């Protein structure tokens, strides 16, 4: 009897210990976020002591490696926005149409074969896409657009768009799927045709989920690095011309990391300032997307 109660208390202790251990493991993710913010902010403070925030946000040149240094984020930002815009213009129409087709039109057999195949697009390493953009898409487009430079935003953005099609397609399809069948049946009962049901009933009902998927796609494109580092160039220019070399925030981070910039210098700190800008951009987009997604889940679940 005594032994069994002893066993029991040992077991209880063990249970408690295990719970504590598991809890500590889950704290690791909080630690990761805290480290990211601490590292980005602490190095950026040093940078902003030398370069005023106002100059950083309004100067139209970014030349940290030149003799006459300018630290205006706008050229990098415009490069990022340009490639992102092109990617979204490719991925959203294709991904959304595919989602409507797969959810409302395709047979389940077709869907089950095509969906895993589409997921492969998202699984291809980005360095491979970079190679493809630089050495296949750009030479191919040059046949039709004579003014296209060897490095340009167009090819990089296009390939990036192809890469994020599955993201838009699968998240939008989830949103379309979550629309209750009653809505579809009601519309059919009123004499609607399939196309009308798909575009006038189901699509509007799933709008917040679809918007969430688009914003997530934008965030993914903003943070994408290797494709633009390889195929879009390394020339920070404040332009929205997709045919000339540009530089994105992410590509700049890679460019500096490859060089031998000594630790502690202002040039070195630009990595962290760019990282902070990128972090704030993607974080904002992710939060909006998260909230929108929650909204469509609340409505239909």
């Amino acid at each position, binding site marked *: 009897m005594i032994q069994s109660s002893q066993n029991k208390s040992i077991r209880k202790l063990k249970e408690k210990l295990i719970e504590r251990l*598991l809890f500590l493991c889950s704290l690791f993710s909080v630690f990761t976020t805290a480290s990211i913010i601490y590292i980005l902010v602490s190095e950026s403070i040093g940078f902003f002591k030398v370069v005023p925030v106002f100059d950083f946000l309004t100067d139209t040149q970014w030349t940290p490696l030149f003799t006459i240094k300018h630290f205006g984020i706008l050229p990098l930002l415009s490069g990022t926005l340009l490639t992102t815009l092109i990617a979204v213009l490719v991925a959203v129409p294709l991904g959304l149409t595919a989602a409507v087709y797969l959810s409302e039109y*395709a047979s389940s057999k077709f869907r089950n074969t095509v969906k895993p195949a589409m997921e492969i697009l998202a699984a291809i390493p980005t360095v491979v896409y970079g190679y493809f953009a630089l050495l296949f898409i750009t030479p191919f487009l040059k046949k039709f657009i004579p003014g296209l430079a060897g490095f340009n935003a167009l090819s990089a953005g296009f390939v990036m768009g192809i890469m994020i099609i599955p993201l838009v397609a699968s998240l939008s399809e989830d949103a379309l799927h979550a629309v209750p069948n009653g809505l579809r049946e009601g519309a059919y009962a009123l004499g609607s045709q399939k196309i009308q049901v798909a575009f006038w009933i189901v699509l509007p009902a799933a709008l917040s989920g679809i918007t969430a998927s688009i914003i997530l796609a934008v*965030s993914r494109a903003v943070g994408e690095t290797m494709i633009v580092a390889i195929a879009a160039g390394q020339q920070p220019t404040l332009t929205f011309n997709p045919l000339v070399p540009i530089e994105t925030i992410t590509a700049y981070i890679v460019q500096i990391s490859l060089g031998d910039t000594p630790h502690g210098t202002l040039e070195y700190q630009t990595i962290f300032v760019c990282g902070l800008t990128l972090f704030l951009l*993607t974080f904002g987009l992710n939060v909006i997307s998260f909230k929108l997604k929650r909204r469509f889940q609340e409505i239909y679940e």
Partner: protein
Amino acid sequence: MNKIISNKRINKIFNAVGLGSTLFGLLILSILLFDVISDGWRRLGFDFLTSYPSRKPEQAGILSAWVGTVWIMITTALLSIPLGISSGIYLEEYAPKNRFTDFIEINIANLAGVPSVIYGILGLGLFVRGMHLGRSILAGGLTLGLLILPMIILTTREALRAIPSSIREASYALGATRWQTVRYQILPAAIENILTGIILAMSRAIGETAPLVTLGALTYIPFLPTNPVSFSKTIPFAHFSLQGFFDPFTVLPIQIFNWVSRPQKAFLVDAAAGIIVLLIITLLMNGLAVVLRQHHQKRW
């Protein structure tokens, strides 16, 4: 009447447009595969896998790159798999519903959306400089480990959520404790789905370039990490060493990036050959995940 007919036509048109949009990505994918294979297959061979990078494109190979990838993946797995599964178990099976757990959950969802290049900056600040690990395999592996941690946590949670609560209740009714229930009932039932998620996460880590470049991984490594086991003819015959984890490294995607960036055309052939190897690994892992998912989809 006319309207119905025109709607029917629109319907037909959309059917074609929808099919086209769905297959467009796959068309580009096949062009990509064809392009890479036709560029690089001639360079592939035993020599390519067993040679170090070289200044001469015809002699260059991916030996240090693929060995580096293996080392990095081992380190990544050692960090992210135990931590990821444990966190997943805690959040799904143990955590009380309160604001703090809510905070952890939102935090993990956000981490999953942080661009990979920022993990590189994290690794640079935390491991390379903060912990003085230098540009080592350990620093690289831990960085990628943190990168895929949210993915593993999320898939673990999904896998655990798919187990019906009747299993838990039956186990409790038989007098099992919470840990016994998790260890002997829930985990074995969920392990295939967790494994699928881990394979996908590892496959993503293998292809990651940006975080390791940001970390300062070198692109020209004509040697291998210190062997963990070495043999001698005198006692104790075998020596074990962890020195390899502190050696500098390169990985397959970085080697490819390096070759793509060279001005000489001949290196592009090496890049294409490297890409074929990388794609074979990635596609095999993804295929394995799809097969696992389809074969073990249990209906409760």
